C-alpha cells in the first residue's frame, strides 16, 4: 500500500519537473522572440528616422537653392542691364566641340546591400587636368604622409611640405580663375563684375544641387526600406 502510494507521488514529481522544464523553455523562446522583435523594431525606427531626416534635408536644401538661384538671376539681370542685352545672350554661346569643365563623379557605396544608393561628387573646373574635386584626395594623401614626417622629427621637411602645399593650392586657384575667365570670355573680354558674381552664385547653386542629389538618393533608399517593411506587415 505504501509502495503504491509512493509511485504516484514520484510520478507526480517527475511530471511537475517536466512541466517546469517545458515552462522554462517556453519562457526562453519567448524572450528570444521578444529580443528579435525589439531588434527589428529598432531597425524599422532607424529607417523611418533616416527617411524623415533625408526628407527634411531635401526640403531645406531646395529652399536654399531657390534663394541662391534668385540671387544669380538678379546678378545676371544686372549684368545684362550694364553690358546690354545683346552681350549677355545665349546666341553668343559656343557651339563648337568642347567638353564640360564642371563634371560629376558618381560612385556607389561599397559594401552596402542596397545598390540603389549612389553618391555624386562635383568636380568644378576639371579641364586641363585641374580637378578640383580630387584636391581633397590629394590633401588626404598628403595628410597620411604627415605622421611619417613628424615621426622623423624633421621640422624643416614639414615646413617645406607646407610651402609646397601652399604653392600647389595657389597654382590650382590660378587655374580655376583662368577657367572661370575662359567660361565668361564668350560674353566679351571685359565683363561686368555682376556677371562674375552671377557665375559664383550659379557655382554655389551647383554645389547645392549635388547635395540635393545625394539627399534624394538617401531618401529614396530609406523610403524603399520602409516601404518593404510596410508591404511585409500587410502580407
Amino acid at each position, binding site marked *: 500500500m505504501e509502495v503504491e502510494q509512493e509511485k504516484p507521488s514520484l510520478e507526480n514529481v517527475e511530471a511537475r519537473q517536466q512541466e517546469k522544464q517545458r515552462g522554462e523553455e517556453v519562457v526562453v523562446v519567448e524572450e528570444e522572440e521578444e529580443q528579435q522583435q525589439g531588434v527589428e523594431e529598432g531597425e524599422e525606427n532607424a529607417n523611418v528616422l533616416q*527617411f524623415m531626416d533625408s*526628407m527634411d534635408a531635401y*526640403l531645406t536644401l*531646395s*529652399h536654399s*537653392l*531657390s534663394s541662391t*538661384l534668385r540671387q*544669380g*538671376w538678379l546678378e*545676371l*539681370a544686372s549684368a545684362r542691364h550694364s553690358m546690354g542685352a545683346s552681350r*549677355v545672350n*545665349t546666341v553668343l*554661346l*559656343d*557651339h*563648337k*566641340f*568642347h*567638353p*564640360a*569643365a*564642371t*563634371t*560629376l*563623379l*558618381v*560612385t*556607389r557605396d561599397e559594401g552596402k546591400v542596397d*545598390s*540603389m*544608393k*549612389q553618391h*555624386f561628387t562635383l*568636380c*568644378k*573646373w*576639371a579641364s586641363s587636368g585641374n580637378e578640383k574635386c580630387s584636391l581633397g584626395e590629394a590633401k588626404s594623401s598628403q595628410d597620411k604622409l604627415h605622421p611619417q614626417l613628424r615621426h622623423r622629427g624633421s621640422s624643416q621637411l614639414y615646413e617645406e611640405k607646407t610651402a609646397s602645399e601652399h604653392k600647389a593650392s595657389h597654382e590650382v586657384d590660378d587655374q580655376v580663375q583662368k577657367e572661370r575667365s575662359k*567660361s*565668361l570670355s564668350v560674353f566679351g573680354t571685359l565683363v561686368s563684375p555682376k556677371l562674375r558674381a*552671377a*557665375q559664383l*552664385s*550659379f*557655382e554655389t*547653386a*551647383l554645389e547645392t*544641387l549635388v547635395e*540635393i*542629389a545625394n539627399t*534624394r*538618393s538617401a531618401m*529614396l533608399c530609406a*523610403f524603399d526600406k*520602409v*516601404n518593404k517593411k*510596410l508591404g511585409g*506587415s*500587410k502580407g
Partner: protein
Amino acid sequence: MAGRAQIPTCNSALIAMIADEDTVTGFLMAGVGNVDLRRKTNYLIVDSKTTVKAVEDAFKEFTTKDDVAIILISQYVANMIRFLVDSYNKPVPAILEIPSKDHPYDPSHDSVLSRVKYLFSAESVASGRR
C-alpha cells in the same frame, strides 16, 4: 534592359539641363556646358516657342545617355511632361526639379516627394498598424 538596371560608376559625368534661358546661361557660366563631336549639347533652352514634343525628346535623350548623371529641369517645364517625369524611376540620371524666375518651386508637384508622400496618408499608417 538588365544592363540599364545596373548603376554605372561614372567619372566625368555630365549635368544636363532643360530650363529657361537665364537658368541655362547661369549654369553654362559655371562650366557645365558640353558640346560633343556631333555638336549635340547637354542642354535645351525652353522658351515660348518650344514645343512639348521637343521637351519630351530632350528628356528621353538625356535619360538614355550613359554619361549624364543629373538632369536639371525647371519645374514648370517638368509639369509639361509630368507623366513622363513621374514614370521615370531609375537612380541615375537623377532628375532634379528646380525653380525658374517666374515659377517658384512647389514641393507638392515634385515627383520625388509625390512618390514618397503616400507614406504620410492615413491609409498607409492604418494598414501598417494592422
